[in-house]
């Protein structure tokens, strides 16, 4: 049996752990740069606040209902996520961390599934303050369905689907569009072909499914029938490309400031590559003007560079990114966003040397190792390329950021006694 553990309204719940006076109060968390809503507490959901809504349009609603608004604090969410996953890992035979707030557990050999799940949920809640829901079923796809029931209808936050009668009953009340892996496109296609509930899919003709929805569709149908097609992935698959992009706190006009931003994103990409022990063979830079300002002309160019050999050193990747930027930058526009994507990623172990370069790749590797070591000890970006700049005027807008309670001593929870 497989369990899906999902943290309830994770980002909002994280904020509440350290501000218990917000219990039962509406909370929303905004995306990077305080742009739109990316998390809502249940109270905020019942006010009709929609996921993804732009924050500036909601201001009067926030004021009217005294909604507590937070900038996203990923240092805090990342740390609490790590704690939750650690507890799940210690408490179960095998785990796949699926996202920052979800994990699949393999419950092979667990005898009392319901009691086990209730205890695990209680432990996570007590130890971290984060409420979770647990759905248990024979396959990953069904565990997702069970989790939805647990979250919506179960007081104890746990729902176990084992018997066929239970599973079929639930699938009859689950819309196709609520299934794992069904996007808007497939949902519409299936609706057009008369599939309304998940149970309709269970009874579908398998060869029709395979023909119209590829082998992944077929796997999903088999999983709904209780035949496992997806095993737990213990090691996350290597990323195909890595993107670092941000909207600016204010519009950026001049080349120098744009350069600082692009250099910072490029070296962040390089750092992510090194952490994954990967190399990238291409670098793409894009810049965007503000789409909400119709009065201006829009300009959204990008430029891709293919590298001689795959790399992960910040200096070379930044240099290439800045050359790409130079090609696309035009005066007279005010830019709202920039980004760097490194692609064609290969494992570091397959490093090849360039036939035409006389640079020693191992020398730069040692430099990057030393830089990473210092930054890990002394704080992010303590040692950086000069071109990344010092004022960073373009930096994120995070006006409602909560303290990093769990990762910085100067930010730990303060209590007056």
């Amino acid at each position, binding site marked *: 049996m497989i369990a899906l553990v999902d943290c309830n309204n994770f980002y909002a719940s994280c904020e509440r752990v350290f501000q218990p006076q917000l219990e039962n109060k509406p909370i929303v968390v905004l995306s990077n740069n305080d742009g739109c809503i990316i998390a809502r507490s249940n109270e905020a959901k019942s006010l009709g606040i929609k996921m993804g809504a732009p924050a500036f349009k909601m201001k009067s609603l926030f004021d009217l209902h005294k909604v507590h608004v937070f900038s996203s604090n990923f240092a805090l969410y990342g740390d609490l996520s790590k*704690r939750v996953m650690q507890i799940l890992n210690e408490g179960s035979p095998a785990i796949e961390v699926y996202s920052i707030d979800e994990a699949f557990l393999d419950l092979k050999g667990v005898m009392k599934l319901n009691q086990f799940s209730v205890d695990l949920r209680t432990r996570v809640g007590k*130890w971290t303050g984060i409420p979770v829901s647990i759905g248990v079923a024979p396959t990953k796809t069904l565990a997702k369905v069970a989790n939805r029931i647990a979250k919506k209808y179960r007081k104890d936050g746990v729902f176990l689907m084992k018997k066929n009668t239970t599973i079929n009953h639930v699938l009859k009340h689950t819309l196709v569009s609520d299934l794992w892996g069904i996007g808007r496109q497939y949902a519409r296609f299936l609706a057009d072909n008369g599939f309304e509930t998940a149970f309709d899919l269970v009874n579908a003709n398998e060869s029709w499914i395979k023909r119209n929805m590829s082998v992944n569709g077929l796997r999903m149908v088999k999983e709904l029938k209780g035949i496992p097609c997806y095993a737990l992935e213990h090691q996350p698959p290597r990323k195909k490309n890595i993107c670092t992009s941000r909207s600016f706190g204010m519009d950026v006009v001049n080349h120098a400031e744009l350069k600082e931003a692009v250099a910072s994103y490029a070296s962040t990409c390089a750092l992510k590559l090194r952490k994954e022990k990967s190399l990238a063979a291409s670098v793409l830079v894009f810049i965007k003007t503000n789409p909400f300002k119709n009065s201006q002309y829009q300009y959204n160019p990008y430029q891709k560079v293919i590298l001689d050999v795959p790399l992960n050193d910040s200096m070379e990747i930044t240099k290439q990114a800045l050359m790409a930027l130079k090609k696309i930058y035009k005066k007279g526009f005010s830019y709202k966003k920039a980004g760097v994507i490194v692609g064609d990623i290969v494992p570091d172990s397959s490093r090849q040397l360039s036939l035409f370069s006389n640079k020693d790749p191992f020398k730069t590797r040692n430099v990057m190792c030393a830089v990473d070591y210092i930054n890990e000890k002394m704080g992010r970006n303590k040692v950086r390329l000069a071109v990344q700049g010092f004022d960073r005027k373009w930096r994120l807008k995070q006006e409602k950021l909560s303290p990093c309670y769990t990762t910085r001593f100067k930010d730990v*929870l*303060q209590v*007056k006694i």
Partner: protein
Amino acid sequence: MDEKVLDIPFYQSDVPAGFPSPAEDFMDLDLNLQEYLVQHPSATFCVRVTGDSMQNAGIFSGDVMVVDRALEPKNNTIVLAVLNGEFTVKRIQKKADKLYLKPENKDFKSIEITEEMNFQVWGIVTHIIHKV
């Protein structure tokens, strides 16, 4: 995710000939404060206090407390509690079926926890880090 810090002393001194250090076989692992202070890493949080209601228990303004959420409160343990939405640190005491939050400073009064209060133990204070 399950990486744990463990510092192991490492010898780089070259001793091509002669006697090895007589202490070499007796080396212990380095002292690890984290290990000493933290019993449940995923349930332990640091909290800084201001105020002196607990000074007779050795908790002074500016100290950092190590708080473990995995432990159960017992009679007379010092807890970080949430009382009507506000954090406080007090000794928890049970007397004749009544529950009290007891300060450790005679200028402050005990608080009786009643039914209508919203009360919750956030975590158990296990250590105080005090800078001298």
